[in-house]
């Protein structure tokens, strides 16, 4: 069945990439590269835009996920939870070339969700009594103390989905879901790399994880696929 592009959201990768430029604040789905779009990462590396601010779970591996963008020297700042799997990120941080703001993982998820759902902030107990408190307002509610965690939004979000329909309704694949539905909500321009584009009405309305209202651009295609660490070890 032919796909009708009735909402005009299905585009060529080149057109999608016009939104990602020097200084773009870029949010990405993925956890250790799983659920990060190989196609869009490859295009970002090829376009070689600079001074990106990156927001996402972790720094990937040097040749996997957002790690490729970091190793190519394209980021000036990251808001993330973990950079341990990408030594280059740590090295750039030590050299003062990459500013890192650490956020606990659940807190980062809620901050992105807050940005995506129009909340002004959320109160979280994680990080109390640690360096994470630094620079944050503490608020007491009914005798308990919390940190005020601010919402996060991005200029552009890159999403990796199992399937999209022309409205941008999305389903994901197993643990490749992770931050993707949150990033989709929290970005001014949400670009989805879908493994497959299916006709409107083909996705079960009960199963849709991201309603199409959050999706601006849908691309598909091969390219950029990396070899996983566990494949290299085998």
């Amino acid at each position, binding site marked *: 069945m032919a796909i009708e592009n009735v909402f005009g959201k299905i585009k060529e990768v080149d057109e999608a990439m016009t939104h990602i430029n020097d200084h773009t604040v870029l949010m990405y789905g993925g956890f250790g590269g799983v659920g990060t779009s190989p196609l869009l990462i490859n295009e970002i590396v090829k376009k070689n835009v600079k001074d990106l601010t990156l927001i996402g779970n972790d720094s990937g591996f040097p040749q996997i996920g957002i790690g490729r963008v970091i190793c190519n020297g394209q980021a000036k700042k990251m808001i993330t939870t973990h950079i341990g799997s990408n030594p280059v990120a740590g090295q750039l941080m030590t050299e003062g070339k990459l500013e890192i703001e650490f956020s606990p993982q659940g807190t980062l998820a809620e901050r992105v969700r807050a940005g995506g759902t129009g909340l002004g902030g959320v109160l979280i107990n994680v990080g109390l009594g640690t360096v994470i408190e630094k620079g944050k307002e503490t608020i007491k509610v009914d005798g308990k103390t919390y940190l005020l965690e601010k919402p996060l939004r991005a200029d552009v979000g890159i999403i990796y989905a199992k399937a999209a329909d022309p409205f941008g309704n999305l389903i994901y694949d197993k*643990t490749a879901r992770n931050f993707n539905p949150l990033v989709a909500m929290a970005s001014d321009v949400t670009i989805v790399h879908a493994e497959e584009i299916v006709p409107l009405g083909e996705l079960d309305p009960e199963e849709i994880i991201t309603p199409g209202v959050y999706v601006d651009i849908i691309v598909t295609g091969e390219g950029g696929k990396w070899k996983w660490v566990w494949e290299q070890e085998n």
Partner: protein
Amino acid sequence: MGLGARELMAKRAAEEISNGNIVNLGIGIPTLVSDFISSGIHVFLHSENGLLGIGPKPKYGKEDENLINAGGFPCTAVQGASYFDSAESFAIIRSGKLDITILGALEVDEKGNLANWIVPGKRVPGMGGGMDLAENAKKVVIVTTHTNKDGSSKIKKKCSLPLTAKECVSLIITELAVMEVTKEGLVLKELFEGTTVHEVISKTEAGLIVSDTLRMIRYE
């Protein structure tokens, strides 16, 4: 063939897990715990990246690149497993639905303070989900070597490294002993075979209260 020290710790930690528990295992020695969970009980293993119900490692060649545990390695999903996004994954932890987490440590102290995410100026990987787990799991069990390579104690009077969470630890399992964090202080409850109270005390910076019911752990 007997178990190595890492396996002994993992086996002992597995005894903390009960039927129906929701459990999160950190990387390193904690990962080994899953091998020792009694086959007679139903346990759901939680993975930060959005899976409740981690199953065994897949067979070689049967890996699915989109089904990965939080350590980055291929896994499977048990019957009754579910997938969700990262916000929902940490909601389970923050809302107190995680019965037990088993984590490693750089330092842990008398009050149950935990430091396991950063050595300033030397090793700055980030906390990942560690702070969420340490702060909000119902029970935090630490599995760690008793001392550093230089012989200094990891069981401190007061943590010197930046904390992961305050007063969060319930139980500490090392290759020498099992210690419980209580209001009175650290209680030495169990010894692994081959060590003595004297050895444990001498290798522990923290004060230790020797339990009246101190027992020796013997695994055949």
